[in-house]
């Protein structure tokens, strides 16, 4: 019985395979949510929050279970990148949105958890943590060393999920208790977050040789897709598709900011005050 997807070296088959560890993981998050969060959500917003939870859990499940998780763990670098994108850029914002702001605020007032939430919302700490996770989890010796064991693969997956929370928390956490950045700063922060992933993405796209033994020596699935081409697809996915959720977040912040500015009443001209507000 294999609990978590890892590189086995066995030939790939399209026969479905169970990974109970993934179901347990997804089930635990759902159970925690229903027990701790859902009861306290006001009935009006419950459906919306549950939809965010479902989207987050669905992303995690797709990323980690058969076939995407299994292909990414031991056969194709491109699928490994799909797992990375889902765990770092899609699931965390959905799960953050599944919890109402007032519950995040309540959590921020707890002594230990509050400190953790406050510190991880500092942009330099969050960005540094996210970038470090992205860089370390793409080093060939780390990938080749960890992906061969279920525990190692689990570590990489959890690191990506944690990295995703770090990335999104300073932008999506409740203000002003936790998040202090204004909208332009949040946009700047999101822009900066797209820079460091360029490094692994460029290595994947432009390397002369396959970087990871795991994928270079894996039994081939698509005979026409070489290990090098698969790696190039991974590099392009990492940059082009991986950035999409970030730019989407950037757009949401920008348009909310613009709408807010439009709603604000225009400044009153001093002459208008003198004439009592009447012109002509």
């Amino acid at each position, binding site marked *: 019985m294999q609990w978590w997807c890892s590189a086995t*070296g066995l030939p790939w088959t399209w026969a479905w395979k169970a990974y109970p560890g993934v179901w347990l993981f997804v089930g635990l998050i759902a159970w925690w949510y229903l027990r701790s969060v859902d009861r306290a959500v006001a009935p009006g917003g419950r459906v919306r929050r549950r939809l965010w939870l479902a989207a987050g859990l669905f992303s995690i499940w797709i990323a980690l279970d058969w076939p995407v998780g299994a292909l990414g763990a031991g056969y194709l670098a491109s699928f490994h990148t799909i797992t990375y994108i889902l765990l770092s850029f899609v699931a965390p914002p959905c799960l953050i949105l599944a919890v109402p702001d007032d519950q995040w605020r309540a959590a921020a007032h707890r002594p230990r958890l509050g400190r953790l939430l406050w510190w991880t919302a500092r942009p330099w700490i969050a960005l540094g943590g996210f970038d470090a996770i992205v860089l370390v989890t793409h080093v060939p010796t780390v990938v080749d060393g960890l992906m061969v064991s279920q525990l190692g693969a689990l570590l990489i997956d959890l690191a990506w999920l944690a990295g995703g929370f770090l990335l999104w928390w300073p932008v999506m956490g409740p203000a002003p208790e936790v998040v202090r950045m204004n909208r332009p700063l949040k946009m700047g922060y999101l822009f900066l977050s797209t820079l460091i992933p360029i490094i692994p993405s460029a290595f994947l796209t432009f390397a002369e040789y*396959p970087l990871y033994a795991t994928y270079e020596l894996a*039994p081939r699935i698509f005979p*026409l897709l*070489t290990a*090098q081409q698969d790696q190039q697809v991974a590099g392009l996915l990492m940059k082009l598709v991986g950035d999409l959720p970030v730019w989407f977040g950037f757009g949401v912040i920008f348009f909310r900011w613009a709408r807010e500015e439009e709603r604000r009443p225009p400044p009153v001209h001093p002459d208008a005050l003198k004439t009592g507000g009447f012109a002509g």
Partner: protein
Amino acid sequence: MRRLICSLALWLIACKPGAPKAFNPEGLAGPTIEPPIAKPEFVLRSTEGKPFDFRRETEGYVTLLFFGYTHCPDICPVHLANIAAALEKSSPEVNNAVKVVFVTTDPARDTPAVMRAWLDKFDRRFIGLTGDSAAIVGALRQVRLGAPTREQLPNDTTYYVGHAAFVLAFTRDDLAHVVYPFGIRQADWVKDLRKMTEGS
């Protein structure tokens, strides 16, 4: 004076045109074999249906010899894909000096047409050889390898063939000083093929 004449004679013998230099396998990625394996002498049928005298046809070339089968789900396609990729990344000089010979260990399923179609997915220059089982086993014995074994997995309609997972690399001195087990990467192949073609 006599010593000088002897030295000159030895030098002339050593520099005789066509005489292969002894190859030094130091620094190659593949593990060295001691003593080296002599290039085998066997005649099998090529994918074009013609007799292929292995020793004669590969004389003067660095020759990579691999025994495998086209239905192999893991090792064979990875080995061949990595050698093909390494040749693509190597200079024309290296490409012109290397021959890759694939001998089937599953002649029942690997017809010349099946082998040709499969090898062409990697590199059209790869040579595919087949023959009757006894001739193939004879070739395997010459390179100190055992006969292939047929393995049937439960609940599986197809069968697998147990075979050696390494590639024998014969340098121009007609000896295999190194073998390349599964796990050798493209970068290693490029480096070693260059060394073998330059150093022998």
